[in-house]
């Protein structure tokens, strides 16, 4: 039987049994009352009989009962160490019943024989016996009780133990020999009926309890398994670190199945070898025993075909490739299941027991479920690695594209610049060169913004948010903005606490604020004012870029964040722009869990509020 609770003195008992065993102590307690009742009964009878009844023998019986009860009290306290099925335990019960019955027989005798109501007290023991012992023991007790009474009747009638006359209890005319025999027969029949009724009830109750207990235990086991699988599922979904996930699954596999060790093997690219993905409970020496070749390890080959494989003794089973090593490692029984993900077998999972044993069907199912989780974890981690590689490839492609697109344009622009050093140009030629230069600048900006937008839309694979101190990160951007503002001229006010920091990426943060500051200065007429104010909140940082510029019409306020859109007022300023800047800003802020708000009044100015998660200073 398995353990059901740590608080239970005798683990493995069904609840009814547990309660009944507790009654053993109660049985002892009850005997104090019985001893007292005998004494009081004797005293009362003596009073009622008015000198016709001598209570002394009964007092002595009561004293004897109290005396041996003291002994049982001491013994019951020590009995907890023994199991309920033990001989000591049963012996104590039989001894109690035996002594009780001797006392009872004495009582029956001193109370006037089978005529008195005292023999009915035997039923009390029959009930307790049925509860504490077996069905047969109960019938045997009924028979012994009847036999003891028969012996008493015989001994009394033979005159060996002269009958005691107690008119108060048995009437003035005690029964004759035949009458006593009849009374005895009635009592014996009564005992058998009581034994039958009681045992029928206790057996049925016990059977139901056992069934209930078995299902409760199965339920508890299932619950434990579900809990582990759920926990595993959570771990699998929460981390993409393959080694960590597989390690946990191997550990749980061994613990849940209550075995020595567990390993997860992954199929190599060649499809011929397996390598250890994770192991729990196996020594380094065993793990380093050599490569597992699928064609030499029949159990792995079977598992890879989707089978569940059992081995009772690995050291003697030819299907096991490293039998001798297994013996030295202390491995006997092995259970091996396939690791399958998306219908493909990608490896195997094994548990190793230190003893020769058979794994049950539910254990095999449990291991298969764990293996499925492991397979899902492997697939997730592999998919993540692929995604990461793809993301890195895209980033590399963007970088190369940027360079390849920019280089010829930059060279062209530079050559145009050099034209005037190569010889004198006419005014018209100079104007055309100037216009070509402007168009090239436009194209260069467009390339930069398009690539930035593409970068802002790429998922953040492998990039974690890091604390970015704004004062440091925005130094160059603020210097550029100050130069730009001075040229215009526009008054630029900056209020940036030295400690202000966000959780994001430095490049992204710089791009966000250089875009916003560039816009603000660009679209604010000379003599206007641009303010950059940063406030540190507890959870988020609020950065405001405010200007007294041309503003944005309410109808355009959403569209400016969509991309490729410039307001009519912006175009009218003659400033160049791609219409992508704010779209890039919004995407970069949102990818780090922030948001951008815009308040603007046409002709009066705009205020962009950026909220980003604050980093502890």
């Amino acid at each position, binding site marked *: 039987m398995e353990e059901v609770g740590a608080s239970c003195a005798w683990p493995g008992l069904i609840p009814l049994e547990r309660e009944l065993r507790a009654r053993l102590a109660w049985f002892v307690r009850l005997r104090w009352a019985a001893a007292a009742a005998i004494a009081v009964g004797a005293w009362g009878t003596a009073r009622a009989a008015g000198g016709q009844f001598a209570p002394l023998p009964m007092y002595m019986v009561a004293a004897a009962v109290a005396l041996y009860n003291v002994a049982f009290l001491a013994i019951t306290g020590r009995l907890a160490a023994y199991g309920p099925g033990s001989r000591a335990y049963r012996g104590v019960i039989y001894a109690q019943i035996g002594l009780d019955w001797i006392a009872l027989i004495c009582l029956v005798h001193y109370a006037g024989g089978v005529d008195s109501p005292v023999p009915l007290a035997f039923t009390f023991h029959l009930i307790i016996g049925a509860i504490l012992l077996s069905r047969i023991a109960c019938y045997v007790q009924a028979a012994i009780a009847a036999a003891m009474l028969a012996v008493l009747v015989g001994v009394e009638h033979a005159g060996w133990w002269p009958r005691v006359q107690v008119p108060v209890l048995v009437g003035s005319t005690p029964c004759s020999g035949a009458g006593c025999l009849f009374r005895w027969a009635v009592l014996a029949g009564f005992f058998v009926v009581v034994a039958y009724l009681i045992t029928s009830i206790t057996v049925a109750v016990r059977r139901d309890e056992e069934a209930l207990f078995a299902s409760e235990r199965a339920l508890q086991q299932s619950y434990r398994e579900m809990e582990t699988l759920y926990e595993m599922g959570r771990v699998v979904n929460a981390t993409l670190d393959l080694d960590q996930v597989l390690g946990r699954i191997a550990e749980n596999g061994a613990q849940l199945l209550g075995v020595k060790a567990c390993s997860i093997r992954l199929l190599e690219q060649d499809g011929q070898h397996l390598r250890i993905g994770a192991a729990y409970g196996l020594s380094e020496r065993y793990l380093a025993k050599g490569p597992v070749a699928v064609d030499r390890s029949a159990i792995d080959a079977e598992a890879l075909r989707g089978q569940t494989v059992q081995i009772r003794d690995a050291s003697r089973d030819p299907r096991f490739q490293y039998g001798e090593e297994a013996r030295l490692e202390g491995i006997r029984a092995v259970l091996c299941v396939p690791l399958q993900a998306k219908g493909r077998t990608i490896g195997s999972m094994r548990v190793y027991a230190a003893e020769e044993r058979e794994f049950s069907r539910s254990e095999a199912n449990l291991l298969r479920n764990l293996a499925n989780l492991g397979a899902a974890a492997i697939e997730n981690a592999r998919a993540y690695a692929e995604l990461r590689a793809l993301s890195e490839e895209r980033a590399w492609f963007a970088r190369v594209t940027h360079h390849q697109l920019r280089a010829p344009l930059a*060279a062209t622009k530079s050559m145009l*610049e050099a034209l005037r*050093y190569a010889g004198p140009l006419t005014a018209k030629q100079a104007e055309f060169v100037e216009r070509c230069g402007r168009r090239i600048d436009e194209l260069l900006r467009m390339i930069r913004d398009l690539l930035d937008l593409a970068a802002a839309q790429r998922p953040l694979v492998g990039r974690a948010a890091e604390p970015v101190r704004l004062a440091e990160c925005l130094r160059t951007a603020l210097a550029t903005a100050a130069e730009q503002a001075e040229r215009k001229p526009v008054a630029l006010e900056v209020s940036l606490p030295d400690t202000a920091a966000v959780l994001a990426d430095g*490049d992204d943060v710089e791009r966000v604020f250089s875009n916003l500051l560039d816009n603000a200065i660009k679209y604010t007429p000379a003599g206007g004012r641009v303010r950059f104010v940063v406030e540190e909140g507890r959870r988020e940082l609020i950065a405001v870029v405010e200007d007294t510029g041309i503003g944005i019409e309410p109808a355009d306020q959403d569209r400016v964040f969509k991309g490729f859109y410039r307001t009519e007022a912006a175009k009218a300023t003659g400033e160049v722009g791609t219409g992508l800047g704010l779209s890039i800003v919004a995407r970069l802020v949102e990818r780090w869990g922030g948001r951008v708000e815009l308040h603007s009044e046409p002709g009066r100015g705009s205020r962009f509020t950026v909220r980003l998660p604050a980093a502890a200073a």
Partner: protein
Amino acid sequence: MEDGKQVILCVDDDPDILEYLKVVLEANGYAVQTAASAEEGMRRFRETPPDALIVDLMMEEIDSGTGLVTELRAAGNQAPVFMLSSIGDNLQRTIDTSALGLAGVFQKPLDSEVLLSLLKAKLRR
């Protein structure tokens, strides 16, 4: 010095950029040596020690220009080194200019006025 002119060694694998530098710098009184690779740049450096160097950051592959700068320092170069960058705004983040001992960084497309004024300032001595 070459014929009384200060010598500028320009290293870039883009011949158009080299041509541009040659035209602009020569028109402004400098003698210009050009090299199309880091190796050639090193050779020219040894042949004629220049008064200043302009080195492209991205030659053939990323950061080969920085390799040249490091090599120049190891060879005992004292002349100011300017870098040309075509990866734009990210230059300052990817390369620690102070660690390389750079005199300045020029963004492509090049602005002749910025180029000449910075060069003049560094070569005044």
